[in-house]
């Protein structure tokens, strides 16, 4: 696979060939282990960013993700974040398996990759614009490559090094988690534009078209992806609320009394204005709401904004903050979107701050606005402060909830796992063990929340751990192929194997499973080299009942011990 290596320190670039490791996550782990000293400061010029795509990206539908890997300024450990949009399509068509970014520019720039040429553009004029939507528009109008390009950029939060700033692509998709935006900011890199026109000849065109058709039909005609066709991820709001798994008001509760108001069904009925797709995906799961807002002072004046919503945002900026109106949630999403913040981390940080204020650990001289659950305007102002960091409190809060609770207390209700703010599920043991041992500390690593919903009586914790790790290993294969996890029901091992065959590679199902295990081990090794320590269990998850009642610390600790002994040290 051809790799493009860009060095921002001396504005140079070179090409390299690296053997497989499939692509995506596998390739990124391999490159990072080779190119980066694991003990670097994440915000120093020595941090390295890898964007990796996979062998299926231009070839088959729904291999539309790009894996970003870097050292996370939020956790100080491995950062891995996946995004859709046009990014994978553009990188693959430009001819690359991965793009690597090293060094730091001495002044603000953005970088344009056009197939095998790289341009370093002066960004001093547009540095300091807080709104990532405006930055994107300016760059899109200046650069060519419409329909063949991706514009990955930060907003004000990335420039200001908020540790959970994201990188946004194609307006609505994000390398959201673990602070890639701050790494961009620290490198004086405002955006990376990739323009790609190209492709590769497949080995067996006839078989290729057959397999393609099969995957396409599976995606559209079977039930495998139905959930994402229709209401989208927010279809989860109602059922999770019903089974008492929807984290509400900093997880003091798991049911939200107005869940129906902010359900996927309600958004679809009242707000859904358009659906769009990532490149090479027929599903179009990106749901855009229209929000019509009046001018505050003038009658008969309105502006209408399109805002992308998903389950995780309704959780983090809705139920978690006690915000029960769709308009309120959409306004918060828009604020977070324009500044380029990770919505989940922002919501969890604000939920903690609200409770800390209630309990008197901090006061209004810290928060400047009176944070209270349900108060949208205060939260919008507070999000602005996370970006501006006008005082010490917001400087600390911009470092994440783990850090904030170290300084101000309230660790027991600071909901982070391995330093990463909690995703939107409180479904039982597998959920939380999943966050703790997942190598990204994400619900997507192993889908523990899904396991919890299928279990009546819990087995020994060791069995749960093995199941979660097994799932995570298979997901390493999917994320190395950069197949969207929403398409995991389509890309079964047998389908993957045949898809490879049409491209000219013999890979049997057993080899795939082994590759997943190997990538998992390598990634874990990288985490350990970066100083990974056994993550803490936040007290709050034990206090608040879920569908399985109250969770027992001993069970989770046993799981963690077992995982540590068998997989980390074993």
């Amino acid at each position, binding site marked *: 696979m051809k790799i493009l290596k860009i060095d921002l320190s001396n504005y140079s670039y070179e090409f390299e060939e690296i053997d497989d490791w499939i692509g995506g996550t596998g390739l990124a782990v391999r490159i990072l282990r080779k190119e980066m000293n694991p003990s670097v400061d994440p915000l120093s010029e020595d941090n390295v960013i890898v964007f990796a795509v996979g062998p299926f990206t*231009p*070839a088959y*539908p729904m291999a539309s993700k790009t894996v970003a890997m870097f050292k996370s300024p939020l956790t100080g450990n491995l950062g891995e974040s996946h995004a859709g949009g*046009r990014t994978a*399509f553009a990188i*693959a*068509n430009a001819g690359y398996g991965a793009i690597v970014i090293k060094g730091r520019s001495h002044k603000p720039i953005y970088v344009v990759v056009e*197939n095998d040429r790289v341009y370093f553009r002066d960004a001093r004029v547009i540095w300091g614009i807080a709104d990532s*939507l405006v930055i*994107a*528009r300016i760059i*899109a109008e200046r650069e060519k490559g*419409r*329909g*063949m390009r991706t514009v990955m950029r930060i907003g004000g939060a990335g420039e200001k090094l908020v540790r959970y700033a994201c990188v946004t692509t*194609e*307006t*609505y998709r994000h390398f959201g988690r673990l602070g890639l935006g701050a790494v961009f900011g620290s490198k004086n890199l405002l955006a990376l534009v990739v323009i*790609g*026109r*190209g*492709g*590769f*000849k*497949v080995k067996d*065109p006839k078989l*290729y*078209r057959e397999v*393609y058709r099969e995957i*396409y039909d599976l995606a*559209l005609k079977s039930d495998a992806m139905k959930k994402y066709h229709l209401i989208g991820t927010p279809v989860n709001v109602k059922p999770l609320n019903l089974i008492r798994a929807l984290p509400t008001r900093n997880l003091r509760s798991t049911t939200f009394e107005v869940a129906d108001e902010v359900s996927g069904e309600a958004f679809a009925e009242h707000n859904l204005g*358009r*659906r*769009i*797709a*990532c*490149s*090479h*995906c*027929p599903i*179009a799961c*990106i749901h*855009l709401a229209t929000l019509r807002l009046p001018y505050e002072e003038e009658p008969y004046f309105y502006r209408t*904004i*399109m805002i992308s919503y998903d389950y995780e945002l309704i959780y983090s900026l809705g139920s978690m903050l006690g915000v029960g109106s769709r308009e309120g949630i959409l306004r918060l999403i828009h604020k977070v979107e324009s500044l380029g913040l990770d919505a989940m981390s922002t919501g969890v940080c604000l939920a903690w701050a609200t409770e800390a204020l209630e309990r008197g650990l901090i006061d209004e001289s810290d928060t400047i606005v009176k944070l209270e659950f349900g108060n949208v305007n205060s939260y919008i102002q507070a999000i602005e402060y996370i970006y501006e960091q006008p005082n010490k409190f917001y400087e600390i809060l911009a470092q994440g909830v783990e850090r904030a609770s170290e300084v101000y207390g309230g660790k027991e209700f600071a909901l982070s796992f391995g330093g990463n703010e909690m995703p939107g599920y409180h479904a039982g043991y597998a959920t939380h063990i999943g966050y703790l041992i997942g190598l990204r500390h994400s619900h997507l690593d192993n889908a523990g929340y899904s396991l919890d919903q299928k279990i009546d009586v819990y087995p020994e914790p060791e069995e749960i751990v093995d199941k979660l790790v097994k799932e995570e290993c298979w997901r390493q294969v999917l994320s190395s192929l950069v197949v969207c996890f929403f398409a995991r029901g389509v890309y079964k091992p047998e389908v993957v194997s045949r898809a490879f065959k049409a*491209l000219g590679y013999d890979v049997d199902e057993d080899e795939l499973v082994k590759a997943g295990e190997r990538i998992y081990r390598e990634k874990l090794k990288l985490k350990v080299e970066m100083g990974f320590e056994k993550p803490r269990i936040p007290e709050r998850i034990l206090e608040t009942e879920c569908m399985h009642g109250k969770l027992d610390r001993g069970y989770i600790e046993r799981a963690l011990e077992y995982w540590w002994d068998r997989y980390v040290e074993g």
Partner: protein
Amino acid sequence: MPKRLVTVDLEKCVGCGLCTLACSRRFGLAGNDYSGILSVSLSGFERGATVIFCRACEDPPCVQVCPTNALRKRRGGGVIYREEICIGCKNCVQACTIGAIFERSDGKIAVCIHCGYCVDFCPHGVLAMKEVKA
């Protein structure tokens, strides 16, 4: 009667680009290099998406400016492209008002010839084939 590729309802386009990929796939290529149809956003996806491809002009300017006759009029509108005599001058790219002729990485061009292969892979009913008078 000859057919041409048309849009049934452009507003329905979600910007997935499956048409773009189908077009190159016809040539056994995984990618967009040979694609004569391009999926684009309308200055950002908040305004939606659309597709750009040959309108099957009855009197195509691209044919007029082609110095080698690599582009010739097609019955029913649009062009027939003979790439072996194309010299890659890109006059046609300049001449097309809607930018529906694309540059390939080998220096030649990609243009829709109204074969209809992409229609089958348009998941949301944006594209169709329509019979036209010759």
